[in-house]
């Protein structure tokens, strides 16, 4: 008997895509295995480390806890979809400038959550709280938060919410 499959159609990094996946496939695995977008990482697999964060309808979610089928009919943006062609997202530029990357494993998730913070226009007092679900074991958070403040200021004047 052929394994059951469910159809998942989503707008993925600006392109309409359709996949046929097992019913228990996680969005994380659809992205990495079916769509070949390996920027999104699996850390804890339990929604606690933030390495797998992507934007679902513009909001950051841990893709290890989202079934692929739940994304059917929705929009997903991964770290690969944040920049504009060869142009990095302003938060990515700022991470480079501030030295906010070390081993890099947490970086895609940090970039996606940070991009959502910049898009939301959240003020500096909100930055640490909203980034608290993205764990980094190398750099600590000082340079990451400096980069976020820079990116947020560039986009929103004084950075106030």
């Amino acid at each position, binding site marked *: 008997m052929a394994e059951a499959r469910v159809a998942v159609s989503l707008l993925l990094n600006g392109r309409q895509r359709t996949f046929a996946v097992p019913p228990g496939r996680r969005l994380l695995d659809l992205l990495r295995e079916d769509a070949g977008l390996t920027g999104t990482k699996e850390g804890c697999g339990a929604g606690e480390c933030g390495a797998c964060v992507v934007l679902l309808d513009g909001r*950051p*979610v841990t893709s*290890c806890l989202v*079934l692929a089928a739940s994304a059917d009919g929705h929009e997903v943006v991964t770290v690969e979809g944040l920049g504009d062609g060869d142009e990095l997202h302003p938060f990515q530029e700022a991470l480079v400038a501030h030295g906010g990357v070390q081993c890099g494993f947490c970086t895609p998730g940090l970039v996606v959550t940070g991009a959502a913070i910049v898009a939301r226009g959240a003020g500096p007092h909100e930055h640490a709280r909203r980034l608290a679900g*993205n764990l980094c074991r190398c750099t600590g958070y000082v340079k990451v938060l400096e980069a976020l403040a820079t990116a947020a200021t560039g986009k929103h004047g004084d950075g106030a919410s």
Partner: protein
Amino acid sequence: MDVPIGELLRPASVEEALALLADHPGARPLAGGTDLVVQMRDGRRQIDALVDLGALGMCGTGETDGYLEIGAATTMEAIALDPRVAAGFPALAAAAAQVGAWPIQCRATLGGNLANASPAADTAPALLVAEAELLLASAAGRRRVSIDRFFRGPGRTVLAPDELILAVRLPLPRQGDGARTIERFVKVGPRQEQVIAVVSLASRAVLGADGAIAELRLALGSVAPTPVRARHAEAALAGRRPDAAARRAAAAALQLDIAPIDDVRAPARYRRIAAAVLLDRFLREVAGG
């Protein structure tokens, strides 16, 4: 790795979802998945079929006949940002903003937080303080259950296997002349953000013009098999000014309301002390404001 499930059912309406749950005894509803997917992944729950509630709506807030009604699929993020919740139920707004980290809050739903029935569920003490009721539905019909009768034990509720939470209804507070209301939610854990509560406290005090406590509701999480109202502590403070003697009496009475255990997050003795400290801090704020 794929989550081990045999079948994923995707109803387009509430009625269809209820019919599917009635027809598939092994099926469980899936909302945000932030608890359920972890439990399935770890093998703590074996589930044949999931009924995905994602297309059913049930989101948002509205005011009707003296209640604020919150759809069961409303996310923690939406609750934390909702001006009606912030105005009438600040403890719920604060609790929603502390459920996991932001990416969890963008998926986790109010109905899911309650149906999962963790003793540490952050929204539960806030809803106990609000004296909320839950609107439940199955293919057989609808019923309302008070939040203080909903939880049965860790992971257990009065929900039938084929029953859904549709909405949570919170009676809108009425405030008399000269009265002042202070409502808070606080929790203790090993980290500032993204913690499972070691102890949580939701509290609402209405102070009369004379500074005495006209009305008080207290509820705690992580100190008993279910989230609990602290009725002994409430009674110890009724009609009193929250002075040092009243606070001591409340701390003693509170110990009768809770039954904490030793577990991986904290010893029972720590929880008893921390619960008393959280209550004392609240009462000091009430006295000083």
